[in-house]
C-alpha cells in the first residue's frame, strides 16, 4: 500500500492540473495547471525508477547497496529543462496579452472570431 502513494499523488496532480486548465479563467492559473500536469508526469517517471530500499545512484563515496535506476531520472531532468522553456514562453505571452487586452480573463481575451 505504502508504495502506491506516489502513484496516487501522480493521479491527483494530473487531475488537479487538468481541472485548473479547463475550469480556471485566469491565464496565470492555466499556466499553473500546465506545471501541475508536468510535475505529475515527472513524479511518475521518477517513481518508475525506484527500487525498494535503494540509494541515490552516485558512485562518489557511496555506502554500497541497491541503487535506484538512473535512466528515468535523466529523462525527468530533460523534461524539467523543457518545462522551464515552455513556462517562460507562456508567461511572456501572458504578459503580452495583458498589455494588449488589459485583462487576464479568458472570456474577454477573444479577439479572434469563431
Amino acid at each position, binding site marked *: 500500500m505504502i508504495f502506491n502513494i506516489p502513484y496516487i499523488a501522480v493521479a491527483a496532480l494530473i487531475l488537479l492540473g487538468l481541472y485548473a486548465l479547463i475550469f480556471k479563467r485566469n491565464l496565470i492559473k492555466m499556466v499553473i495547471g500546465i506545471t501541475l500536469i508536468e510535475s505529475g508526469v515527472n513524479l511518475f517517471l521518477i517513481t518508475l525508477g525506484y527500487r525498494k530500499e535503494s540509494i541515490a545512484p*552516485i558512485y*562518489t*563515496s*557511496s*555506502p554500497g547497496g541497491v541503487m535506484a535506476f538512473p535512466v528515468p531520472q535523466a529523462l525527468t531532468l530533460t523534461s524539467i529543462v523543457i518545462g522551464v522553456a515552455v513556462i517562460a514562453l507562456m*508567461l*511572456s505571452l501572458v*504578459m503580452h496579452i*495583458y*498589455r494588449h487586452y488589459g485583462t487576464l480573463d479568458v472570456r474577454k481575451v477573444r479577439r479572434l472570431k469563431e
Partner: protein
Amino acid sequence: MTEMSKIVRTITSIAFPFAMIYGLYVIAHGHLTPGGGFQGGAIAASACAMILVAFGSKWTLNKIKEKGLSVFESLGAIGFIALALLGLVFGVAFFNNFLTGSNFLFGTIPATGSGLADINTGGVIPLMNFAVGLKVIVGLFVIVLVMAYASTSFKEDKK
C-alpha cells in the same frame, strides 16, 4: 522593478559571489555529483536575478546590454554542438566521447566502484556541462531581464 533599500543592496553584494561560486561548483562537478550544466546554471542565474531585484532593472540595464548577452548564449549552444561534431571528426560517431582514455583534458578513466571522486575524468561531459552552463546562466538571466524591462515600460506607458 525599482531599487530596494540599502540593507538589501549591501547583503546582495555580499551574497552574490557566494551564490555565483556555488553555481559554478555545481557546473564543474556535474560529472561526479548530482547537478550539471542546467542545475548549476540555474543557481548562478538566480544569483544574477538577485542583483536585478535588489538594484532595480534600470541600474542593471545600464550596466549590461541584452545584445551582448545573447552572443554568449549563442556561444554556449555552438560549443555544445561543436563538441558533438568533434566526436564525429576525432571519434567514431556524433556525440562520441572522444576524450576518455586519451590522457588529455579530463581523459582519465576512473576506477569502477565506490571511491573518492577524481575531477579529471568524464571526457567531453565536463566540457559540455560548461557550454550548457554558460547558455543557461545567460539564457535565464535574459528571460528575467526582459520580463522586468517589459513590466517597467508597461507601467510607464500607463502613466
